[in-house]
Each structure stands twice: as structure tokens, then as C-alpha cells.
């Protein structure tokens, strides 16, 4: 029963997995083996992974259920659209530079709003906290859904009412209410997505294995004991919340720069739940698992497309089966024994953390 703690090994496994996946998929995509359907999923998968890693910081490491991650993604996405619009308008068009600035801005804005939100939210615990994050996520999306924003030589024009924006001839609408962002010059690439995943992993692992990371986990395990060793639980939970929100923003920015148009309703409650499913399925606090679960669950609906109308039904069934199998003690033990037997017989079994 003695299970070794293996955070360092975990991080190495995660990094190797991400790098290996990137190399394999790049080669396949370069050789045209992926097809349009799957190639178009490469960047979204990276977005979802980053958002899920961020959410795992909050749900797995800090132990607070957050149902508003899609809200932070939308914030990042629309920040990116505005920043990119402004940059393009002023003649900055190099995709890499635009994307970098957009992701930085998306991260900062989402992180800042996450910090603002954490002030009222972290006064609550458990289910109540989850409900409030859900509400905040909805509020962000619904506000953005009513925003009209355009840019011309006089600067940005903003309104909550359609057609009230008077712009110069060279003006361009960036966000048109329910239509969402329009005419975005896409800048995202699989390479950028890969780098963003790697950076998020490094940030999360480095924080996890530091003073504040330990404090965050201590508050999760036993808040009273944590306070008696001098840990301020609210400050630590705020840190986890802000990192989670900031990574959500970064993911959103990458997502926003991947489509020439998208609506705010894309980032609804369902997306928050979907990301939560990736996290729970991958394992709370388990980043490698999160990456695998996200990749599989993003690809699965595409694989199941041949089932036409039964697609989502089968998807749900597969999800339930995976949940049962991965959480069943007996099955887990069997798998573990199987693995050990394989190791003992010297065949070198494959394991993942």
C-alpha cells in the first residue's frame, strides 16, 4: 500500500508526453495524414488543455469547485480580438507578435478579473462557491454578448446598443453583439498552442512544488491545521484562483485568434462543464491525466461522427464507462497488479502517473 509521492516524476512524464504528442502530430499533419477534420482540432485541443490545466489548479490542487472557467476563456478570447484589432489597425500584422501580445493581454485581463472575483467568491465554501463562480461565468458571457465595439482612427467605439456606433470610413467592427467577434485575422498555430501548453505546465508545476503550492494543498487537506502553521488560507486560495483564471484567459486568447469569427455563446455553461469533465476524468491534481483526457474527449466526438444522430448518446455512454472504470477500486487494483506482474516478468510495462 506504500505509494511513493512522485511529483518530480509526474512533471517529467507530462513534459515528455506533450513534446512527444507535438512531434508526432506535427509530422502526421505535415504528411497530410490527419485530414482536414482532425487538423482543425489541433489548436482547440491545445486551448482546452491549457484551460483544463488551469482549472485543475483550482479544482484539484486548491480543492474549490469552479464552474466559470468558460467565462474566463471568453474574457481572454474577446480581449485578444480587441487587442489584435487595434494592432492590425495600426499596422502591426506579424502573426507571432500579434498572438504573443494577445495572449499576454488575455492572461492579464482574465487574471485581474479572477482576482477581483476571488474577493467575494472566496468568502464562500463548497457548493456555494461553485454556484457563485457559475453565475460569474454567465455574467461575463452575457455582458460580452451585448457588446458592440468598433475601431477607427479616433480610437475604440463602444456601445451596448446596436447601430449607435458612428465611425469614420476606415472604421471596422470588432465585436458585434450576439454575432460575436467578426473579421478576425487568425494568428494561432499548433506550434503556439504547444508552447502555451508547455508554459502553463511549467508554471503550474513550479508553483505546485514551491512554498505557496504546498500551502495551497495544505489548505485543501486541512484548513484549520494550515492556519495553525501560519498559512493564510484566503491568500493561498486567491493565488490558485488567479492562476486558474489567467490560464483560462490565455487559452481563450489562443482560441479567439484561431477563428475568423465566433460568438460569446460559444463560451457558455456547457463549455465550463466540459472542461470540468476533462479535469475530473484526468484526475484531480493530475496534469498528465488532464492532458490525456482532454485530447481523447475532444477527438472522440469526431471519431464517433459516423454514428450520426446517435453520436452524443454513445459519447455519453463512453464517458460514463470511462468514469466507472477509472474510479473503480477493484478494477484499479487489477490493473495495478497486472502492471506489476508485467514488470516482474521483465517485459517492461507501460505506465502512466
Amino acid at each position: 500500500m506504500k505509494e511513493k509521492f512522485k511529483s518530480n516524476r509526474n512533471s517529467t512524464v507530462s513534459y515528455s508526453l506533450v513534446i512527444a504528442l507535438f512531434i508526432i502530430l506535427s509530422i502526421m499533419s505535415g504528411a497530410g495524414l490527419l485530414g482536414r477534420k482532425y487538423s482543425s482540432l489541433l489548436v482547440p485541443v491545445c486551448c482546452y488543455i491549457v484551460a483544463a490545466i488551469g482549472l485543475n489548479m483550482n479544482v484539484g490542487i486548491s480543492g474549490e469547485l469552479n464552474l466559470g472557467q468558460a467565462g474566463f476563456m471568453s474574457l481572454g478570447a474577446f480581449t485578444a480580438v480587441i487587442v489584435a484589432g487595434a494592432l492590425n489597425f495600426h499596422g502591426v500584422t506579424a502573426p507571432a507578435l500579434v498572438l504573443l501580445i494577445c495572449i499576454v493581454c488575455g492572461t492579464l485581463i482574465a487574471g485581474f478579473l479572477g482576482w477581483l472575483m476571488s474577493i467575494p467568491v472566496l468568502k464562500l465554501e463548497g457548493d456555494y462557491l461553485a454556484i457563485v463562480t457559475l453565475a460569474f461565468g454567465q455574467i461575463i458571457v452575457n455582458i460580452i454578448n451585448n457588446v458592440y465595439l468598433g475601431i477607427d482612427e479616433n480610437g475604440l467605439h463602444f456601445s451596448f446598443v446596436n447601430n449607435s456606433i458612428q465611425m469614420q470610413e476606415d472604421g471596422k467592427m470588432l465585436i458585434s453583439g450576439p454575432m460575436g467577434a467578426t473579421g478576425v485575422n487568425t494568428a494561432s498555430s499548433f506550434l503556439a498552442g504547444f508552447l502555451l501548453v508547455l508554459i502553463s505546465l511549467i508554471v503550474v508545476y513550479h508553483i505546485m512544488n514551491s512554498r505557496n503550492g504546498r500551502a495551497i494543498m495544505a489548505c485543501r487537506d486541512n484548513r484549520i491545521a494550515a492556519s495553525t502553521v501560519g498559512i493564510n488560507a484566503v491568500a493561498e486560495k486567491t493565488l490558485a484562483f488567479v492562476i486558474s483564471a489567467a490560464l483560462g484567459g490565455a487559452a481563450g486568447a489562443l482560441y479567439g485568434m484561431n477563428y475568423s469569427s465566433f460568438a460569446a455563446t460559444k463560451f457558455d455553461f456547457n463549455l465550463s462543464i466540459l472542461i470540468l469533465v476533462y479535469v475530473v476524468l484526468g484526475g484531480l491534481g493530475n496534469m498528465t491525466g488532464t492532458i490525456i483526457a482532454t485530447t481523447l474527449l475532444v477527438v472522440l466526438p469526431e471519431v464517433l461522427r459516423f454514428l450520426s444522430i446517435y453520436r452524443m448518446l454513445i459519447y455519453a455512454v463512453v464517458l460514463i464507462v470511462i468514469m466507472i472504470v477509472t474510479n473503480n477500486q477493484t478494477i484499479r487494483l487489477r490493473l495495478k497488479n497486472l502492471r506489476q506482474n508485467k514488470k516482474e516478468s521483465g517485459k517492461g510495462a507501460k505506465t502512466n502517473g
Partner: protein
Amino acid sequence: MAEENRKPILEVQDLGIDFGGLTAVNNLNMKVYPEQIDGLIGPNGAGKTTVFNMLTKVYQPTRGKIFLEGKDLEKLNPVEASQAGIARTFQNIRLFYNMSVIDNVKTGMHNHFHYNNFDAIFRTGRFRREEKRADQDARELLEIFHLSEYADLTAGNLPYGQQRRLEIARAMATQPKLLLLDEPAAGMNPQETEELMAMIREVRDHFKIAILLIEHDMQLVMQICEHITVLNYGMLLAEGTPQEIQSNPDVIKAYIGD
């Protein structure tokens, strides 16, 4: 021991707390001197753990004052009380069960790190220096508590006796001036209790701190404590050396009845 001309590390004056209409502790006066092992005993429900909760500021006392090295603790919260130098263990063990044994100890050192999140993310020299030092200190502490071989184990997987010891090790990692132990020998067999006693003495001698412990094991209390405070119904019943307490008729009455 010439206690009277030394300054007490902990001084409690007329301490009291009410929960609604119930007075749990009242008019408690006590002093704990540096490098002294002090016992807090009393029948069940006498208010011993309530006193610990007031000392660590988990409960805000209704009346009275607490001084640590002459400093009034009135306005402090539990976090600040820990930073001021009071560490404790719990009657029902409260470890960070999903973290490794050594990380539990390092968590106790939380306020003795001087790097920030940027140092952590970019793994600066300061981060590596301080983490290395913390790792060494934590391993030394584990050595003292005979937990070295379990360093990388998840705390929740430790046997009961080791969990108790780890809780003390974590408390010591905060570098306290006063250590509060709430029933450290609860659930231990005689041999484990024997080891624990030796360990408590070692902690005192090694770290030169004062220890206040709640315990029901009278043999342990009488052997290890140099001074004992007896509580009954939230009031001070008696105090003195173990010999004085053992022969005190009030104490005998409170424990055995008339």
C-alpha cells in the same frame, strides 16, 4: 529550579470564554516558563482543549489576557498567533493527508521562506538556495522524530503512531517558542508512549522551547512534566509539581470522586 526569578514565556490572566450561556473556561491564571515541560490535566470536559484553542486564537477569549513573552495576543488571528511563536498539535490528528511526509514538514516552514512566486516560476538562485536549505532542515527534523525512512511517503499512509510524531515535527518546523501538544499519547501502546516521552524531552533539550501538553496518561504526565496545572469545570483546581498534584486532595476528589 528557580522559576520565580525567571520571566514566563506564556502568561495567562483571568482567561475565560462563554459559548452562549455556557461558561466553558473561567478565571484561568497560569504561567509557563522557558524550557519547561508543563502539563494541563483535568477530567473530561474540563476545558483543556478550549484553553488550547484560545491560546492559538482559534477561539477569541471572552475575558482575560494572554501574553507571549510579554506581548499581548488579544488582536491576533490563528495565523498571526503561529507567526508569534505558538505551535500546536491536535487531539484528532490533522495532517495534510494527501501530501508527502516531508512536504508536511516543509509546509510548517511556510513563513521561513523568503522567495516569491516569480522566483518559484523561474527557479531563480534564491528559490533553489532556499528550497535546498528547507529540504535539509526538514530532513533533520524527520531524523529527530525517527521519520526519515518515510520522507517520501504520503502522510495518510503512515501508521498512527508515526502520524502523531509527524504532527509534532510539522509544529516544530514553524520554529515555535511554545509548543502545545493535545493528547500526544492518545491511542498509543505503552512502548510507543515510552518512545514519545523520550522524544518530547529531546525536543525540549534540542530546541530549548517550552512545552504545554494535555494528557490523560497520568504515568506520562507525572514522569515528564515539571509543572502541572489541573482544570475542573473550566476553573483552575490546582497547580504545582507532580508530587504536589499527586497528593492534592482536591485533585484526587475530582478524578476519583468522593
